[in-house]
């Protein structure tokens, strides 16, 4: 019986190994010895990548052959990899290449003008991404023949947005409140990058402390103030500030401005209805009572 069990286990293991070996496909083509990336468009949409609608293929191109014209001609030859396609249905004819101070001006036939706008911009993007790999190239310009009036660019890699960074680092718009000279609070919208919503109030408070007020507004919270601790429970935000915050306690107005600015900013966030301010060392403000939780008022 044990022998039979061992045999069955061995048979099952052998079958699994055979199955797995079938899953591992040997590379059909060897990797190029001198790889160089040439950019094209994806034939089918691929979502969630950092190259967006574009995709690169590796070609064999020795260092000594890496000139703008050689690279452009390699690009115009079209992709060899399955899943890639030339950006436009019709390939423009190359008329000339001129490199000046890092800018490569590529002259094409009039086919370039007749392309749809998206196709033309895709060609520009592919050429820019491809040519800017060369150390001597900083920008790419497309032209039609030798006509000076029909030019597109110059483009750099930064002119093309291939993926949404906000999907990794989302931006939240908050309102920072600053007092004006009449003591009224003025709201200024500001974007804050935050992946964890629970950290948004802390980041907002820090942004308020660090922000430069607009013209007509005052800085209310002393610039050196630090947020030492923060928590939210049942709508009550408890914030512990460093002793630098007491620098606002010179006058009743300045203390009021500082407290109201902070409270109004935090209460504008979802989930916060009141704020309890504490200063490290159990220090209190002499010109403003912060012993109890404070709720923002519309009259501020």
């Amino acid at each position, binding site marked *: 019986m044990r022998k039979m069990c061992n045999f069955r286990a061995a048979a099952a293991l052998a079958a699994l190994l055979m199955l797995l070996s079938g899953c591992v496909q040997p590379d059909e083509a060897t990797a190029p010895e001198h790889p160089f990336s040439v950019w094209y*468009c*994806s034939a089918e*949409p*691929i*979502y*969630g*990548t950092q190259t*967006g*609608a*574009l995709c690169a293929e590796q070609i064999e191109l020795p260092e000594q052959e890496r000139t703008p014209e050689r690279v452009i001609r390699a690009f115009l030859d079209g992709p060899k990899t399955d899943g890639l396609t030339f950006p436009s249905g019709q390939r423009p004819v190359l008329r000339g290449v001129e490199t000046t101070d890092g800018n490569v001006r590529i002259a094409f036939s009039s086919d370039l003008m007749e392309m*749809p*706008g*998206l196709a*033309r*911009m*895709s060609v*520009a*993007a592919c050429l820019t991404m491809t040519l800017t790999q060369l150390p001597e190239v900083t920008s790419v310009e497309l032209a039609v023949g030798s006509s000076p009036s029909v030019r597109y660019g110059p483009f750099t890699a*930064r*002119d*093309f*947005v*291939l*993926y*949404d*960074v*906000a*999907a990794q680092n*989302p*931006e939240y*718009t908050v309102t920072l409140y600053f007092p004006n000279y009449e003591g009224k609070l003025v709201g200024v919208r*500001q*974007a804050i*990058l935050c*992946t*964890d*919503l629970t950290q948004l109030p802390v980041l907002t408070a820090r942004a308020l402390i660090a922000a430069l007020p607009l013209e007509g507004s005052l800085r209310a919270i002393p610039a050196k103030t630090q947020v030492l601790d923060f928590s939210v429970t049942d709508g009550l935000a408890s914030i512990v500030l460093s002793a630098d915050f007491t620098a606002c306690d010179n006058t009743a107005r300045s203390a009021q401005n500082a407290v109201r600015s902070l409270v109004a900013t935090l209460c504008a966030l979802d989930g916060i209805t009141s704020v309890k301010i504490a200063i490290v060392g159990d220090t209190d403000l002499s010109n403003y009572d912060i012993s109890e939780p404070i709720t923002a008022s519309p009259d501020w």
Partner: protein
Amino acid sequence: MRNAFAYMTITAFALLFLNIYSATATRNLMFRSKYASAQDKLQVVTSPLSGVDTLSVETVRQVITVLGDLNVTRLIVTDASGTALYDSSQSMNAVGKTVLFSETVQALSGQDVFTCRYENGALKSFAAAPVMTRSVIAGSVYLMEYDAGQGGIIASLERTILRGSLILLAAIFLFAAAFVLVGSQKMRAILTSIRLAREGEYSHKIQMRGTDEYATLADEFNKLTDKLLESEKTERQFVSDASHELKTPLASIKLLSDSILQNDMDTSTMREFVADIGNESDRLTRIAQKLLTLSRTEDENGETEHEVVDLGETVSRVFRMLVPLADRQQVALSANLDHGCTILSREDDAYQIIFNLVENGIKYNRENGSVHVTLRREQEEITLTVEDTGVGIPADALSNIFKRFFRVDKARSRQAGGAGLGLSIVHEMVERNFGTITVTSEENKGSCFMVMFPYFGVEEDAADAENV
């Protein structure tokens, strides 16, 4: 242990399926919700933009401002060539740049796009749609929503289910371990008892409480060992009885032969002694024959070939054999036999049964007594009755009358040449031929043995009873 492992494996797979299914179902539900929301928001944005003659930075900004906060993480509007005209992001503003997201490129080719992913604890949905102005693609609208809240719900749900599954698995493991422990203890006790029984120790009993399968098995084992013990006792008793019975005539033969050899005696005395030796040899032969018959009866159980036997004919043959004995004993033989009393039996068994009963009736009878045999067929039953006017059997001996070597009066039995095996042979043979036997008796009045068999045979015309 193997069963417990199997249960654990099945449970683990079930819990794994539960985790995967619940996570997938929850995500799909949220994806559908996001899709509906995205479609609505795209419609809200593309509709007014479709009414604008030319999309420009200013016109798009005006339209978006009127629409207000759409509650999306990022909104981008492009022209037909992919150049961004509006971007809600302040920190990564793409206005003036060419947006080549897969979503916007698809939208600019005329397709609506929606994708949703659950990544890093957040639900990220991406949607794009073309802006159509007079059936021409004038631009695209892209929106992205980063929902950490819903993502947190998914993560929390998955964590809760996983935690619950792990706790359940741990509990099942503990219970399984406990059951295996208890079960293996009980099984070990049972195996120990089986080993002892195999060595012949039938008196060992398994003490096990409960009503589960182990307790039932232990109980059945105890009953089995009781039967084995009883069977062993019976066997020992049989061997002991058989040895004793055989020893007695052998001792007599030895005594008589020694007497002949050691003493001078006259011829007539010697002839008497030799005759006695012959009688004891005959007795020894009868005992051995009966033991052999009994042994064959046990061996042949289940292997016998039954046939249709006419009991009436059998009674006639028995009478012909026993008439000389009956005459010597001055006992009258008579019979009242129905026709067609056929049964399914071995011919020899039927003969032996009737012979033993009639012979006993003759041997244990008084002078001028009688033995009457009746054979009746009533519906589907054949009844054979052997009545005698003999010495009878005491009431307290009736329950043992069919046991081996049992004799009511040993002296009389020896005198009659019996060894106490005849009725036990009858009993065995009746039972293996699908019959039953009962006895009634009154001391000094006589005995009545009634044997019943199921009728078996072809139908025949009713006939008058025949007197023999």
